[in-house]
């Protein structure tokens, strides 16, 4: 069977599974819809959290980014896993004991203020929308390459599937579908990695393989060979990278803290039955995530060596274009690979200096990797299904955050307090349907800055939500004046720095002009510190939180008596 048919079969089979689960787990109440009745097993919840977390960006783009960035790619690896330690130790158990559906609900109740609640709703919706548009785009790219439909049709098919199970099943449908999606995406990620690891180093485990000797009998370590190749071709040494230490430090911190402040991640810990399970669940989530995140740098290394070897040929002089492997011509048609014969010798050559003749998009590395390594057709089809699973699972989780923020925090708690549970559920479904249409529109007509904004969403989450939540738990006296002033100054500072360097004056976006050498990607860390400082100072000069609130804070600090997450 050819790749095309196999891809249709495998992707079609996974879709059938997702829809079957959605029908089986329909939501009957807002309680089902928002937090899956708080009855999800911590292992299943860990898997669902992992699928929710690992987006099209993690699955499709991350290994590619690392393979071009070398050591610097560690900012993503540590940043997007280290945040779970903060979640497990500082946030998840307390928020679970607090027992509400959403992050804006915590902010609103803890700071006894509807203004704070509304600020939180706006931040949550903004962060989630920028994210979801990128996911829909990911679905489109996978469809267009592997199923040869155009990107618009691809996005519409993706929207239809997500619509079906998110609107029908809410959190319950999403959680169980995500468990299935996790299984699909992790298999799709590991199978090619294991194959390639065996081929290149003889080790079954890729995490060991990429630090081992090459199996060609030369006795050279794979990473040493790559360091050598990189410097020869005019790139920075692979294991050293090019970013300054302070920038790596700040970007990693912004991504870690941002992870712990993202509403669609935090809400997962409201779905387990007990505080104990919330702690455990964060551990399981990280385990499932780590499986992919420790494999990614291995894939990055394998892919980089393979790519350089196939393009530049065994003699490192270039390969004739007529003899180019089929993956190059396949991806050329999508515009993600381009070759320009500068010296007119009819050979392709890839390097980091003036000799370079290739333009290679980072996003193709994971998807093209099985083709580059010449793996069987079913592996390539599996990778396509995995990419779609990653994009769908994350979109669904984000759409739920948008719809609950609007139907619950905005309508029920602020604007229309008298609606019944049934009506609220209907509004939640309408809100997610509208959100899917907007996300689909953004996926088909992406504003040029979507990709950049996704990275900045972390900085914004880090500088707004994280300090407000931490202070809300660990300082009984923190009051609404402090929290609101902190959130507003943190997010304004961060957004202003980013907007200045990315949109107003992009020409100045160089290390010499950055404050303390911190790039816009890492500025969220400084914004977070500012938020903490402003909040603490303002709180000192205004009256402390009311007695009832202080007692509530005392009550969330120990597990006993945690009921199910509830609306009121």
């Amino acid at each position, binding site marked *: 069977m050819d790749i095309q048919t196999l891809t249709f079969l495998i992707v079609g089979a996974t879709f059938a599974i997702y829809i079957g689960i959605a029908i089986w787990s329909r939501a009957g109440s807002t309680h089902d819809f928002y937090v899956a009745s708080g009855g999800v097993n911590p292992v299943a919840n860990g898997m669902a959290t992992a699928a929710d977390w690992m987006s099209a960006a993690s699955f499709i783009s991350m290994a590619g980014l690392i393979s071009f960035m070398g050591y610097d790619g560690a900012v993503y690896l540590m940043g997007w896993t*280290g945040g779970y330690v903060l979640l497990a130790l500082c946030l998840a158990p307390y928020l679970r004991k607090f027992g509400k559906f959403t992050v804006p609900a915590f902010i609103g109740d803890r700071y006894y203020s509807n203004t704070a609640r509304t600020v939180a709703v706006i931040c949550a919706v903004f962060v989630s929308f920028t994210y979801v548009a990128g996911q829909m785009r990911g679905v489109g790219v996978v469809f267009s390459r592997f199923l040869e439909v155009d990107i618009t049709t691809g996005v519409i098919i993706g929207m239809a599937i997500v619509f079906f199970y998110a609107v029908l099943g809410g959190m319950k449908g999403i959680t169980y579908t995500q468990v299935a999606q996790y299984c699909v995406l992790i298999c799709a990620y590991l199978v090619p990695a294991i194959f390639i690891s065996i081929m290149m180093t003889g080790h079954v485990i890729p995490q060991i393989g990429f630090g081992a000797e090459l199996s060609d009998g030369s006795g050279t370590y794979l990473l040493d060979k790559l360091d050598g190749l990189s410097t020869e071709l005019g790139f920075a040494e692979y294991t050293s990278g090019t970013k300054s230490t302070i920038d790596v430090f700040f970007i990693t911190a912004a991504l870690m803290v941002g992870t712990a402040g993202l509403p669609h991640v935090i809400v997962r810990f409201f779905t387990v039955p007990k505080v104990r399970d919330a702690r455990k669940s964060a551990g399981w989530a990280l385990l499932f995530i*780590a499986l992919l995140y420790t494999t990614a740098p291995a894939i990055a290394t394998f892919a980089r060596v393979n790519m350089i070897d196939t393009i530049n040929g065994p003699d490192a002089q270039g390969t004739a274009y007529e003899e180019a492997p089929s993956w190059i011509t396949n991806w050329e048609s999508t515009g993600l690979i381009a070759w320009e014969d500068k010296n007119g010798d009819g050979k392709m050559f890839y390097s980091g200096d003036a000799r370079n003749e290739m333009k290679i998009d980072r996003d193709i590395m994971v998807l093209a990797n099985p083709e580059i390594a010449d793996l069987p057709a079913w592996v390539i089809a599996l990778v396509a299904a995995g990419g779609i699973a990653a994009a769908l699972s994350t979109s669904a989780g984000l759409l739920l955050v948008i719809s609950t923020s609007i139907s619950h925090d905005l309508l029920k708690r602020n604007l229309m307090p008298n609606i019944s549970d049934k009506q609220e559920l209907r509004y939640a479904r309408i809100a997610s349907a509208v959100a899917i249409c907007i996300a689909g529109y953004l996926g088909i007509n992406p504003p040029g800055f979507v990709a950049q904004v996704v990275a900045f969403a972390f900085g914004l989450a880090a500088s707004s939500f994280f300090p407000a939540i931490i202070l809300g738990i660990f300082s009984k006296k923190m009051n609404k004046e402090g929290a609101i002033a902190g959130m507003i100054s943190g997010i304004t500072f961060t957004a202003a720095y980013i907007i200045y360097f990315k949109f107003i004056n992009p020409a100045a976006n160089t290390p010499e002009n950055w404050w303390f050498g911190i790039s816009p990607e890492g500025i969220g860390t400084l914004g977070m510190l500012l938020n903490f400082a402003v909040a603490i100072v303002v709180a000192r000069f205004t009256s402390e939180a009311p007695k009832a609130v202080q007692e509530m804070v005392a009550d969330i600090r120990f597990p006993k008596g945690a009921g199910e997450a509830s609306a009121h």
Partner: protein
Amino acid sequence: MSFESEQHADDYWKENLRLMLSLLAIWFAVSFGCGILFADALNGIRLGGFKLGFWFAQQGSIYVFLVLIAVYVHKMNKLDKKYNVHEDHEEPDEFEEALEEEFGQ
């Protein structure tokens, strides 16, 4: 108040904070320390084909994160039991009460 006394509540919270802060210190030392600030120095040491700083940044720190959460879950469960604020306590209690009512021991 579910604690036996104010004193108990304070002790529980202090022990919790001490555990949390010591685990966070390790978290910081491994990721920001070994993986970033001292990565260049550690790169002089090799672990098979890996330079040590590079390994911490791309592999080691993630494994340590996992261990940290596991230790935290384990220790907190013990701490909850010690101060009698764990959750399982409630259902068996009710269950026993129901049994007593039913069979009148």
